[in-house]
């Protein structure tokens, strides 16, 4: 039987995804070195086409699109990863408690989860931002709030199957407390679907952040890819690069995350992959 790593890294699509994500991460970390000026700074003639003094041109106010792209990778990734971490933490907690306890607590928590699931998530995010006012922190809160229910359902389902297994019963007989059993015995066995769902959630979070910024509900002091598309969409006909450049960046990033996520899924569930 092949190990997880050999299955994961033996997949060429995963390599493509990892290369792009690694590059992106490096750019995000080194943003201030690669583009030392404020990405909002007016540095040149407005709407200069790519290929001149500025490799990717300038926007409607004469801001460097390349600098925006570099700093945008940082904002976009940070918001998406933080939102996903919050969503995974909260979703796991709700799902684990509901699945492990069952009965009334399960019923209450699942109805609570369904309440969030029934509201169309993007509209819900818009409402939250409108109420909280746009800022980086509120974007994280809004995206996390609309993203946790699927995590809760996945974790609950896994906990339900795992908790009836013999090693859990053995732990009960051995006298371990509920919290210890849940954390030490049950949750580690739900990790593989959680990792897969969570990694794909980052892609969704990037899309939600971009869509909110596109609608003008992004953080006004933060250069993100969605902000760049939102600010450039009015000029699509005369300055194609304003939407195309960040648009392609989003496309590639979401694609890369999906490739890696699928690779994880195949590696963690080898029987499914062989089908």
């Amino acid at each position, binding site marked *: 039987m092949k190990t997880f790593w050999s299955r994961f890294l033996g997949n060429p699509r995963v390599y493509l995804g990892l290369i792009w994500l690694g590059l992106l991460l490096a750019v995000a970390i080194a943003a201030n070195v690669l583009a030392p000026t*404020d990405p909002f700074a*007016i540095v040149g003639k*407005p709407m200069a086409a790519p290929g001149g003094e500025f490799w990717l041109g300038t926007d*409607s*106010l004469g801001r460097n699109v390349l600098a925006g792209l570099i700093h945008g990778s940082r904002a976009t990734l940070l918001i998406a990863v933080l939102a996903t971490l919050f969503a995974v933490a909260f979703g796991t907690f709700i799902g684990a408690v509901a699945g492990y306890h069952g009965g009334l607590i399960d019923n209450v928590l699942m109805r609570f989860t369904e309440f969030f699931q029934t509201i169309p998530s993007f509209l819900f995010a818009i409402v939250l931002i409108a109420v909280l*006012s746009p800022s980086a922190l509120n974007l994280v809160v809004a995206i996390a709030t609309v993203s946790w229910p699927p995590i809760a359902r996945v974790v609950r389902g896994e906990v339900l199957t795992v908790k009836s297994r013999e090693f859990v019963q053995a732990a009960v007989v051995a006298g371990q407390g509920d919290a210890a059993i849940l954390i030490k015995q049950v949750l580690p066995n739900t990790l593989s679907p959680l990792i897969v769902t969570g990694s794909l959630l980052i892609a969704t979070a990037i899309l939600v952040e971009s869509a909110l910024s596109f609608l003008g509900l992004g953080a006004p*002091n933060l250069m993100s890819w969605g902000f760049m598309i939102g600010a450039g969409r*009015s000029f699509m006909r005369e300055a194609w690069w304003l939407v195309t450049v960040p648009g392609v960046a989003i496309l590639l990033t979401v694609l890369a995350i999906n490739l890696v996520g699928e690779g994880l899924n195949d590696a963690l569930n080898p029987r499914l992959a062989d089908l």
Partner: protein
Amino acid sequence: MNRRFVLALTLAAAALGGLPAMAQKSGGTLVQITQPEPPNLAPYISTSAPIGQVTAKIFDGLLEYGFDLKPKPALAESFEVSSDGLAITFKLRKDVKFHDGKPFTSEDVQFTVMEALKKNHPRGIATFRDVTAVDTPDPHTAIFRLSKPAPVILKALSSYESPMLPKHIYGQGDIKTHANANSPIGSGPFRFVEWRRGEFVRLDKNPNYWRSGLPYLDRLVVRFIADASTRTAALEKGEAHVAGLGAVPYNDAKKLALRPNIEVSTKGTEMISPIVELMFNTKLAPFDNAKVRQAISYAVDRQFAIENVWFGFGKPAMGIISSNFQPSGLFAAGIDFTVADRVERANKLLDEAGFPRKADGTRFEFVHDITPYGEEWQRFGEIVQQNLAQIGVKVTLRYEDLPKWLKRVYTDYDFAVTSNFLFNLPDPVLGVHRGVHSDRIRPGTVFVNGSRWSSPETDALMDKAAVETNEAARGKLYAEFVQKVSEASPVAYILEVRFPTVLSKQFKNVIDTPLGIYGNFATAHRE
């Protein structure tokens, strides 16, 4: 003994309706785009911008105005102001009928002014504040009785600002919830036919219009198209013929102007005169210091904002009063904040004010609230942010929705600096005084004096100008007033927006009044 100024307005029809009617092609349908769809068609209770774009065609005013803002006859053939300024006598036309066939009389004027506008119209409350009664000695004479002179009234009698309503319709029942609020009946060149929600309002020619031979058009359709690029495409393809007041994005208007079948006009905002400003919270340090406020006014690059955000549809503001008032003699320029060495001046003022640059190059920082009217305001906020960074002031932008922003600025005064959009309207008494008069510091009332700055001298100048019936003397008062406001700079007046009106060349005479798309289109005709 009682000398009377007679501002004789010679026979109404001669001026406008009497133009050689045969020369114009009659017939045709003009399609106007209005954005957004109006909430109702009741211009007597709301000044919401899209309402007037429809109803100004359905109702008439007592007067109309030329581009110099001088009155011209409409429903009133002539008017006369008594020498003490306390009575204005209007002689009404005798041949005017409402769309339901009933005649227009002085009773309707009395009802409209005293019952409808003075009590319900957001601006009418201020315009007609000093009108104590409207006398009706005969059906074709209406006399406004005033408690003190109010020259502003003669600027506010257009079909857009003060539509004359039929008393026998709107006098029945509660005017605030009137059955005809969405199916208006007036005396104007077009009569209301149908409103298909989300799609269009259809107006047809009023065959009994009192200006014989007018209107030339058979039909006027006002379409509502939610998406900006669809609006632009409709104009480009000739499916729609006229749109203005922000219905077409500025950069699209600039592009459309290059097309052979389209003309883009910046006329028609002379009675609206919108000004983009930066309003300071003058009760909050450091904006309680006039030098700081002036420094920021110097630092903003007005020309850059005009070219790159408003795409050329504007000019730098020279003070609190719009240059549109130049022909009527009420305009005066204040301090010129567009001088070549403005950045040095700004730096010097901040040094003098006691805000030297710290080790990191900054002097102080603040949060700049952005007017939530759309993306050009975000871009403007970003420009201000960059401009102020040059003089060592760090700006953080905040963008909230309209109700939150209004509450923050005009109720809680919980702001440092906000961008703002204030209209000068047809007269400074309506559009300018509200911004800086001490009696306009009213928590909870929006678009008044949010900076909370005032001074006894400027208050006195405004109070005098409001009752001064001689235009030249008014102009002198305003010149002094503008200079004083400019020195204090409670608001940085940035630029005057000239809204582009996009017009199909298939039609002529569409925008022929200072009200632009708020005009009645009676003389609009096919090429």
